[in-house]
């Protein structure tokens, strides 16, 4: 009997040994389609970025920008002309060669008048793209842009080929380490190793990316080991259980998601800086992180990612102190407090965080009327309609402090000084100078209490204990699998 059990165990264990060149990884959201250059959905990049598609530059795991399809580049004295030398011997998955023409096609398509690129602003500074020879491309900017190489690393700037553009939404053809094999809508995308890859060949032969949106289902699939990893695991309350289980490893990384309690700076009462300062002091960040995120998240005091070397910790400008908050409200003429709206989009950081924030604000005399909105409604009412008092949202784009220079942006922060600072930053290419300008910018919005800065969204990944090389942080929404392997 005992021997039979052993045989049965061996039979169960053998598929696990055989799967060492395969990986099944789950993410929560399914991409709407597979063209990273025509939608905002982060899920598209979560599947394809650095797997199927690559740009001239790309984000490394630590968030730095490194060469990808461009091997090298030269920047002219005045900072307006970039000459890229393209990598040789690169071909698209359909066999066609990657040349300077593809770069020109990609960039011209993204900045065209009828472009549907969700980040068209990244390409606005480009005035012309010239093909010098098949391996060289020259990009002329209308003015110097210190962010340009960074901008080219975005998922929305990956290189696509004219020959395959028509069917890109269902059959993406790129230059990356994996080729696209199949998309079973509603269930999974399958990728296969690109044996002609220009870089180091991936150790995985095949990868399946499954879409599991329900947190309970995510838990079950992981526990039953139907999947090998779950990137962006949606139920932080289960993490201790996985940590305690030797079959699994839990990796908690950081994201570019600054989660903020945004205030409508254009309207009463939040047009008064004292009121905004009062709100900032009324908020207990750690209580929100513990209560809404089960302890996952880093408190922030400004709109900047803490893992960035240029981050300045400004949480001391707005420590939790209801007494100060009440005093500030009284000074601003709101001894009796006031009531306002708190509109919440679907993610749990907003819905759960909203309840806690409402309670904290009530302590200092601010009554909130909570409305739960779907994303589409939130975009229409809050983001475009600016019909809100308070809202909670995580800004997940990398290096997006520039939104504070847009007076028409939904929280309506209009400070000419800040706008000038951003213009100077864009025109500056010297790294040290840029760092100091970025620090000034962080300080300025923090001291103006534009929004209440809550925490940086954490990025938990649960994986089989034998998996190596998964991205820990999310400098951009992506799950590059080229470096992933099974250990013995």
């Amino acid at each position: 009997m005992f021997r039979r059990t052993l045989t049965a165990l061996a039979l169960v264990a053998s598929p696990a040994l055989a799967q060492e060149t395969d990986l099944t990884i789950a993410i929560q959201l399914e991409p709407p389609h597979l063209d990273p250059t025509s939608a905002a959905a982060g899920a598209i990049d979560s599947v394809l970025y650095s797997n199927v598609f690559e740009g001239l530059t790309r984000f490394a795991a630590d968030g730095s920008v490194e060469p990808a399809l461009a091997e090298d580049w030269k920047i002219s004295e005045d900072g307006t002309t970039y000459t890229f030398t393209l990598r040789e011997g690169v071909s698209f998955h359909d066999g066609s060669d990657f040349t300077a023409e593809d770069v020109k096609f990609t960039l011209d398509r993204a900045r065209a008048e009828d472009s549907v690129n969700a980040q068209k602003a990244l390409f606005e500074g480009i005035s012309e793209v010239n093909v010098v020879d098949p391996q060289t491309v020259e990009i002329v900017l209308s003015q110097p842009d210190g962010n340009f190489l960074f901008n080219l690393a975005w998922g929305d700037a990956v290189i696509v080929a004219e020959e395959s553009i028509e069917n890109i939404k269902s059959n993406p053809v790129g230059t990356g380490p994996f080729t696209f094999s199949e998309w079973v809508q509603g269930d999974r995308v399958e990728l296969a190793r690109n044996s002609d890859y220009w870089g180091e060949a991936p150790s995985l032969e095949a990868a399946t990316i499954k879409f599991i949106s329900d947190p309970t289902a995510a838990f079950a699939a992981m526990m039953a080991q139907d999947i090998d990893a779950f990137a962006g695991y949606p139920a932080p309350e289960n993490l201790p259980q996985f940590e305690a289980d030797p079959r699994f490893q839990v990796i908690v990384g950081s994201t570019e998601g600054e989660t903020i309690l945004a205030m409508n700076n254009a309207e009463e009462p939040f047009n008064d800086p004292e009121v905004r300062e009062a709100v900032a002091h009324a908020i207990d960040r750690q209580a929100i992180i513990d209560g809404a995120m089960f302890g996952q998240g880093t408190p922030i005091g400004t709109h900047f990612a803490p893992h960035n070397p240029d981050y300045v910790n400004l949480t001391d400008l707005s420590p939790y102190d209801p007494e100060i908050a009440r005093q500030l409200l009284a000074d601003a003429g709101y001894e009796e407090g006031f009531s306002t709206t708190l509109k919440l989009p679907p993610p749990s950081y907003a819905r759960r965080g909203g309840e806690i924030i409402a309670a904290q604000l009530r302590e200092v005399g601010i009554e909130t009327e909570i409305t739960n909105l779907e994303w589409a409604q939130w975009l229409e009412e809050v983001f475009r309609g600016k019909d809100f008092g308070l809202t909670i949202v995580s800004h997940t784009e990398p290096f997006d402090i520039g939104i504070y220079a847009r007076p028409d942006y939904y929280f309506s922060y209009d400070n000419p000084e800040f706008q000038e600072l951003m213009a100077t930053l864009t025109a500056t290419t010297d790294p040290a100078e840029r760092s100091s300008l970025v620090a000034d910018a962080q300080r300025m919005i923090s001291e103006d209490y534009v929004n209440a800065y809550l925490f940086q969204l954490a990025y938990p990944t649960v994986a089989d204990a034998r998996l190596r090389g998964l991205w820990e942080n999310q400098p951009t929404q992506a799950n590059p699998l080229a470096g992933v392997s099974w250990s013995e």
Partner: protein
Amino acid sequence: MLRYALNRLVSLGLSLIVASLVIFLVVEVAPGDPASFMLGINAQPDTVAALQAELGLDVPKWQRYLTWVGGMLTGDFGTSYTYRTPVSEMVADRLWISLPLALYALALSTALAFPAALYAASRRGRPGDMAVMGATQLGIAVPNFWFAMLLVLLFAINLGWFSAGGFPGWDDPLAAMKALTLPAIALALPQAAILARVMRSALIDIMAEDFMRTARAKGLTRSQTLWRHGVRNALIPVLTIIGLQFSFLLAGAIIIEQVFFLPGLGRLIFQAISQRDLIVVESVVMLLVFAVILVTFLTDLAYAAVDPRLRRRA
């Protein structure tokens, strides 16, 4: 019989027209523009306008309604805003999961309910009856998604007999059926409970009828009367329930498909609603309405087949 069927057919057509209007209005009135949803918070207004034009959202609503209805009449259900594939293809793909799942669940629930009802009815008031009634009470009270989670916990996580969810595809029919088994059980049990209760009371009512006593008087045994005369006459309420249940199983599997992450019709609607993929929502809901109305129509015909009186009355 023909007049009865025609009558039903006209009401089927009218229901469809009303349904299409209501669906279109409800979906279109809800706030949220698909183009700005897809392009997110960094998009510029001209980009949103370009996408709206590409999706055909820049024409008046009445015109879009007519195009939609006109298209459906010729079998064209439009093209999904987000996926950019024809809705009919997407629905066909998803139906390959939802339809077998619904049929599987229906078969399971009927297979469970019939013997349970017959057993309970023949032992009315005795412990066997009470046990069945207690079990069905529990079956009705327990929500199917919760029951689904318990099944996953036991059979997928603890015992490892089944996957926790997902669908491998029909290439391997056995694996596919296996993947649908837990979801089908979770869907079937509450339905079986309802069906068993309805059938039991129908049988008990029938057994008090004069013709049943006559049958017994002719010398048939208790179980012979139950089988030959009881079951057939109890079928009318049972058919009604099965008809309703099939529509429910097809349309109501949304939550179960989430729990088992099955790429079925329910999941398609769920995603389409949150992504503001209006045309998919409209067309799929319309199809479901059509399916429900069609099943009702077929149920009506089935009544007439079982009960000759209905044929004459219409």
